[in-house]
């Protein structure tokens, strides 16, 4: 392993897979937030949430562009961002299960955002020290945006958790329902273990405690209970990052990919 950002071919395959993981969670969550545009609870919030979606979409594109470059080292050619986004099937998507969950109510959407944002910030923060310089550079740009996302979603969790009786109940239910998807974020498989050992990927198992502390602190401020850890979906070697998804991703991709797939020879 060198520190110059150029890896051995065997590592390149792992890096490609890892970059898709980072990209796909951003793209899928941005797609979900795109469903909200024009339907938010108040204009100011519509605008604010769309900014988060645009940030994630931008980050996803940076990861995909780099993934295409890495792919070119290990395959006859590397795919561009649109081929990767629009022409991969669900089983080839590498996003976390959490982000593909449907929007539901505003409480569900904010709970999903909040749980992801805190993980996302810790992961990106670790990646700013990646030995892969490109990864470190993208993470350094993204981490500033995500710091704002964390502040925004945490603020909302507190407002809704400690708002009215009804909002408290909805918020608690939303957190409880999504909790089973949080374990996956901290379960490293062989790919991530190898890349973390090489100093390229974030060691996600190390992020678990800081995440619990941060999330727990906000939930306490919000007068919400930290759910008990039960069985965690996708945290046992077969989950979103291995291409094993919930039913929801297929529908999301069917909508998102419909046009490029129906006119494969077209450019847009």
């Amino acid at each position, binding site marked *: 392993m060198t520190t110059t950002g150029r890896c051995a071919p065997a590592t390149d395959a792992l890096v490609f897979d890892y970059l898709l993981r980072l990209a796909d969670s951003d793209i899928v969550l941005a797609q979900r937030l795109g469903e909200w545009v024009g339907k938010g609870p108040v*204009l*100011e*919030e519509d*605008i*604010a949430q769309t*900014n988060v979606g645009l940030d994630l979409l931008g980050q996803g594109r940076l990861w995909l562009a780099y993934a295409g470059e890495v792919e070119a080292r290990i395959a006859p050619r590397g795919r561009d961002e649109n081929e990767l986004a629009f022409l991969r099937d669900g089983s080839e998507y590498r996003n976390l299960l959490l982000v593909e969950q449907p929007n539901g109510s505003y409480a569900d959407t904010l709970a999903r955002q909040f749980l992801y944002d805190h993980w996302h910030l810790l992961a990106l923060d670790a990646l700013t020290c990646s030995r892969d310089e490109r990864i470190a550079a993208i993470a350094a740009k993204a981490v500033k945006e995500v710091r704002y996302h964390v*502040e925004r979603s945490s*603020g909302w969790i507190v*407002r809704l958790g400690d708002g009215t009786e009804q909002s408290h109940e909805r918020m608690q239910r939303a957190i409880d329902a999504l909790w089973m998807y949080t374990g996956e974020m901290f379960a490293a498989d062989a790919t991530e273990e190898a890349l973390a050992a090489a100093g390229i990927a974030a060691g996600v198992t190390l992020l678990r405690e800081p995440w619990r502390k941060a999330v727990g602190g906000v939930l306490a401020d919000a007068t919400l209970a930290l759910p008990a850890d039960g069985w965690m979906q996708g945290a046992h070697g077969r989950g979103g990052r291995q291409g094993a998804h919930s039913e929801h991703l297929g529908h999301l991709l069917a909508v998102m990919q419909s046009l490029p797939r129906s006119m494969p020879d077209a450019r847009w």
Partner: protein
Amino acid sequence: MSTGTEWPLWEVFIRSQHGLAHKHVGSLHAPDAAMAIRNARDVYTRRNEGVSIWVARSADLHASSPDERDALFDPAGDKVYRHPTFFPMPDEVKHL
């Protein structure tokens, strides 16, 4: 009939770059000051318009009345000696 859940109105002031004063750019609704600042960031600085934000509850702003316009502002109209151009200077005198 109003539902009674309308967020209060805030006035937003943005400083566009170092050295310039905050300038009123518009208003928005927010439940509290912290969210007013965040909303102002998202609503009024999407195109790099600002480096600093002030917000104030619209209800807390006090304004001069249009009825007093003449009394307040007309008296300044004839104080021409306050302006440097009132004092012609010879061309050969520099740095004045």
